[in-house]
């Protein structure tokens, strides 16, 4: 069974270096749909990524910077890219070789399609 997120997440998964992609409920931090590799814990990624994005939004608002758009977290073995709104956050987990520019473009396109 497909949802409005199926095609979006499939498109991320086809990109080089993308390890996982998730559509997460912004309020609850629970994955609505996800494409994961074996061994990945989508529940934890969803909860923590949603929390991080919510905190980033608050920080941007507090600093008078307006709404938050694309958020990227660089880690030792990869990166976490996020974009979302009040209801849904799209999360992409990529390895260091993943093309962030393409991921960002795809996230913006997906967010516009969902809006």
């Amino acid at each position, binding site marked *: 069974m497909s949802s409005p997120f199926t095609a979006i997440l499939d498109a991320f998964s086809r990109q080089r270096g993308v390890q996982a992609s998730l559509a997460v*409920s912004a*309020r*609850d931090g*629970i994955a609505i749909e996800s494409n994961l590799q074996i061994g990945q814990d989508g*529940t934890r990624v969803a909860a923590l990524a949603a*929390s991080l994005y*919510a905190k980033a939004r608050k920080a941007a608002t507090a600093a008078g910077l307006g709404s938050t758009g694309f958020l990227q977290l660089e880690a030792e073995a990869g990166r976490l890219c996020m974009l979302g709104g009040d209801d849904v956050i799209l999360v992409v987990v990529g390895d260091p070789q993943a093309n962030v520019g393409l991921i960002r473009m795809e996230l913006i396109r997906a967010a516009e399609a969902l809006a």
Partner: protein
Amino acid sequence: MIKASVEPWIEAPLQQFVDDAGVVLALLLHPSGQVMGQYGFTRAMDVMSACALAAAIHLSSSELGMQLEGKPFTGLHHAGKDRQVFIAETETRRGPYILLTVFDGESSLGLVRMFFDEFRVNLANAAPVPVPAPHPMLNENFERELNRNLAVLFGRA
């Protein structure tokens, strides 16, 4: 200072859960309604009421789960406008306990569930070998134990 738990082994896991999940209130109780640990409550009366209600809600939802699925529901979540409640059971060598927690927009259901899973493991690891109960849980014992636990938590012991 308000102590977080009646028994010392509960303190660290409960404190870690509160810190990690960023919840507003947390209450660990025995299924009988006896308070075992708390965070965020300032009045003994509130703890007593919350324990009684949580134990009753947990029993009702467990029974509902039995009726519908043949086994008790493992957790219950209620979302209010600003605050949300999560109630779930955790098993230890000392028997089952119920955690009631209240959280707001600073946390989320996903975070609470995730850190509850960790709390469950931490509490089970921290639980000492059970000691035989000194007396049966009669009405008069329940009242005495409840008052003793509340006194410990609110610094009157």
